[in-house]
């Protein structure tokens, strides 16, 4: 029999999360990939959360076994990273870790420039011979744009290699000289920040940020979601809407007068009417939105009765929205394998679209619909 080699700390994450949530009137999601700070903020005056509370939430989610070794570190006094304003002539580029410079990227930055926007470029400060160099390893395009914008001073957050050497920090054996060491630090940090540890902005986060800054298309799309009874969410929970990118695509489908969002809204309304609690199911509301649009283009009128009879048929025959769209796709594939189609569809949205038309014509057929590309 195997013996226990070490003591495992008793920790139950779900219980700890529940205990932590007892401190809050409004509960919020706490998962590995996201703690929902937007909902968490509703527990605070002005919706502003102390970082300490978020830190505690992170501790709860990660648990005691993932804690780093406890220490106290004052980076201002004990570290080698400092901030300073620099003259243009003090700044350099070391192409070993910045392989090129992209004028078109600088022009792109320029098109969206605002003096409140630049983040602080990062560098390494090292003296070789009589010259002190500040190599920029992150934000060198921003530096160039600052220059084009007439800046006379440049902010840099830099690693002071000179100070490290003065304090007796030894260069590891694998580096022949101070330059190699500085380049290694710069290159490693550049990969860490721009690739290895970069958390890509999700479509949901981008949407919520644009909503906060009152981007007009985003506000309009969110108004539609609210009017129908959906809330943008990161995960598919009750009444949640998670398909941001597809939502934007369908929202942008304009009618003949250029009005956006009409088909998006009706597609969502169709789902909400029949499955009021379920999160928005992409391959229900999207093919329906496409159908509403196509009917309008071809001159078919889809009255309210159409929504009622189709929805009642789908719920009675297939059940919940996930089961419904899965079953519709299965119908399509069954026909594809049995008889084949001249021009099979290449995307689920159109497979379900065609199947809805076929199912309606075969089982209800009260009004005319456009022809499905794949008929059965």
């Amino acid at each position, binding site marked *: 029999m195997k013996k226990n080699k070490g003591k495992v700390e008793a920790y139950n994450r779900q*219980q700890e999360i529940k205990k932590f949530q007892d401190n809050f009137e409004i509960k919020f999601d706490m998962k590995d990939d996201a703690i929902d700070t937007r909902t968490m903020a509703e527990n605070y005056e002005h919706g502003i959360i102390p970082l300490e509370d978020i830190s505690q939430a992170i501790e709860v989610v990660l648990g005691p076994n993932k804690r780093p070794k406890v220490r106290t570190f004052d980076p201002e006094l004990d570290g080698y990273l400092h901030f300073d304003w620099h003259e243009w002539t003090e700044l350099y580029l070391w192409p070993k870790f910045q392989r090129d410079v992209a004028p078109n990227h600088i022009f792109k930055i320029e098109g969206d420039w605002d003096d409140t926007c630049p983040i602080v470029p990062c560098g390494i400060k090292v003296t070789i011979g009589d010259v002190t160099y500040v190599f920029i390893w992150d934000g060198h395009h921003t530096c160039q744009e600052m220059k084009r914008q007439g800046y006379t001073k440049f902010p840099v957050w830099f690693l002071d290699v000179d100070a490290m050497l003065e304090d007796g920090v030894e260069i590891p054996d694998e580096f022949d000289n101070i330059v190699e060491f500085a380049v290694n630090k710069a290159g490693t940090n550049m990969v860490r920040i721009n690739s290895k540890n970069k958390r890509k902005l999700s479509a949901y986060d981008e949407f919520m940020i644009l909503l906060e800054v009152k981007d007009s298309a985003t506000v309009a799309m969110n108004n539609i979601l609210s009017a129908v009874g959906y809330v943008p969410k990161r995960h598919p929970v*009750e009444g949640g809407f998670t398909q941001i990118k597809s939502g934007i695509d369908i929202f942008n489908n304009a009618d003949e007068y250029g009005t956006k969002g009409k088909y998006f809204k009706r597609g969502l309304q169709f789902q909400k009417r029949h499955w009021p*609690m379920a999160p928005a199911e992409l391959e229900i509301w999207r093919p329906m939105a496409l159908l509403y649009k196509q009917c309008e283009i071809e001159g078919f009128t889809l009255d309210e009765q159409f929504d009622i009879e189709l929805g009642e048929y789908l719920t009675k025959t297939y059940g919940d929205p996930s089961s419904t769209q899965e079953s519709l796709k299965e119908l399509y594939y069954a026909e594809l394998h049995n008889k084949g189609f001249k021009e099979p569809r290449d995307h689920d949205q159109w497979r379900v679209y065609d199947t809805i038309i076929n199912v309606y014509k075969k089982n209800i057929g009260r009004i005319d619909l456009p022809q499905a590309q794949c008929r059965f």
Partner: protein
Amino acid sequence: MKFLYLKLDPFGADACKIGITSKPDVRLGVYQNSYYHGSHTATFDYLWVGDDKNINNIEKTLKTQMGLSIQKEGRGHSEWISEPADVVLNQISETIKGYRYKVFRATERPVTIYNLDQVIDKCKKMVDNN
């Protein structure tokens, strides 16, 4: 045809187990295995029937909804919900209605190995008639 079941804690704690199976006789046998049949009879205290898709999807939804009451860590913990039966039953009933799950509740309760065949027959009829 697949089944969703809710099983009460046999020792009376305010907790229940949710699970799904397409072989209810085998599952009841597994639950019976840990106890002497003279001391405890394994039961499905509530049972619903539906097609595979609807049953699989409702289980996923219920476990998301009740996630905070389910212990994810610990071997064998993850199917137990630390909530009283009436809370869980109410959640199941609201979810069936709100999501329009095509699942049907068996009227017999509890379901044991002794009445299982009869319940399955009735379930088949319910599914066929709907």
